């Protein structure tokens, strides 16, 4: 496994296999219920990321408020001191979204399983089809406001140049050639690094190496000392790049979860093509 500055955020299958019986290690399957039912890592609790968004928020991709998150994480049997290992079966998009929500609410010990269940299966490790039953626990979320960027935060960052904006959509979305909102384009000043450029691996999902990723972001003027706001269309790909930057040792990263789904549909906000 390649080394990264924040390597604790990437959990190896060997480590998980060796620590599965530790009651403080909680494994969370971030996929939908159907795929979880087909096969999952023994002991994993199913917490589909689609259930993390607040349906009452005008920003469609806004996570639940703290009081509801306390219920969601509590019902998953999670406690604040747990070592949480998240996985999915793709390039960790879903896992990254849950990772971001956990960091948003102050969880300290959380990582993503390297290669997800795809690697786990390729290594012929044990699987389960029985839904994991857990005892509800008390989880106390503490909102880390610096992990979330709102539309107002982005406007302020544009004016003050206090943060770099990172658009992680495809080049066609960035240029406006492809639009999933009322208008195409990007937030003024944003740099474009497509989230897919961070992916390595062939049959088993992986991230590019530390060196490759550093070069990728260095090319658009980013470095770990910078404050970065990631965004995409609906805050999921942005959470993936958020995770990659955290893995690279960036401390001051936030996800503009409203993303182009909010910005591109509001004609009062400035846009570039």
């Amino acid at each position, binding site marked *: 496994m390649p080394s990264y500055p924040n390597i604790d955020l990437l959990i190896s299958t060997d480590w998980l296999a060796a620590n599965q019986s530790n009651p403080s290690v909680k494994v969370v399957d971030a996929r*939908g219920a*159907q795929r979880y039912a087909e096969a999952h890592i023994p002991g994993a609790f199913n917490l589909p990321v*689609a*259930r993390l*968004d607040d349906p009452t928020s005008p920003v469609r991709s806004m996570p639940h408020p703290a009081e509801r998150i306390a219920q969601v994480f509590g019902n998953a049997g999670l406690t604040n001191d747990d070592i949480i290992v998240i996985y999915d079966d793709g390039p960790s998009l879903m896992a990254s979204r849950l990772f971001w929500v956990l960091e948003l609410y102050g969880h300290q010990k959380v990582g993503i399983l390297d290669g997800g269940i795809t690697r786990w299966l390729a290594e012929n490790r044990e699987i389960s089809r029985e839904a994991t039953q857990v005892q509800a626990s008390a989880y106390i979320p503490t909102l880390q406001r610096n992990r979330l960027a709102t539309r107002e935060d982005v406007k302020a960052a544009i004016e003050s140049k206090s943060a770099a904006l990172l658009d992680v959509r495809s080049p066609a979305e960035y240029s406006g050639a492809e*639009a999933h*909102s009322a208008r195409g384009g990007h937030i003024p000043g944003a740099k474009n690094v497509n989230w897919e450029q961070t992916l390595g691996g062939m049959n088993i999902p992986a991230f590019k190496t530390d060196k490759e990723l550093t070069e990728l972001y260095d090319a658009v003027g980013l470095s770990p000392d910078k404050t970065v706001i990631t965004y995409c*269309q*609906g805050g999921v790909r942005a959470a993936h790049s958020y995770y990659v930057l955290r893995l690279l040792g960036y401390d001051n990263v936030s996800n503009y979860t409203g993303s182009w*789904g909010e910005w591109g549909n509001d004609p009062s906000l400035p846009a570039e093509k």
Partner: protein
Amino acid sequence: MAELDLTVIPVPTDLSIDEDIDLRGEVCPYTFVKSKLQLEEMEVGQTLRLILDHLPAVDNCPRSFKNEGQEVVGVQPINDDEWAVVVRKLHD
């Protein structure tokens, strides 16, 4: 405040649905990517019903299909967590 595109468009009760795609558990961008691929395999005039539970996708998918010149016939909640989006293919 941004104008959201979550206006309910009731799916006509007599509408014939040609194909379904169950996207529960999927998140953007795969909700649109997978439904677009399925629509590409269908005939002009046919209807595809997307079942979604990722709220941003309920905004983004109808907008994306409209931007591609397809017809969004309906956007309707199924229950507290799930939505149906029906798209009619207008062109290849």
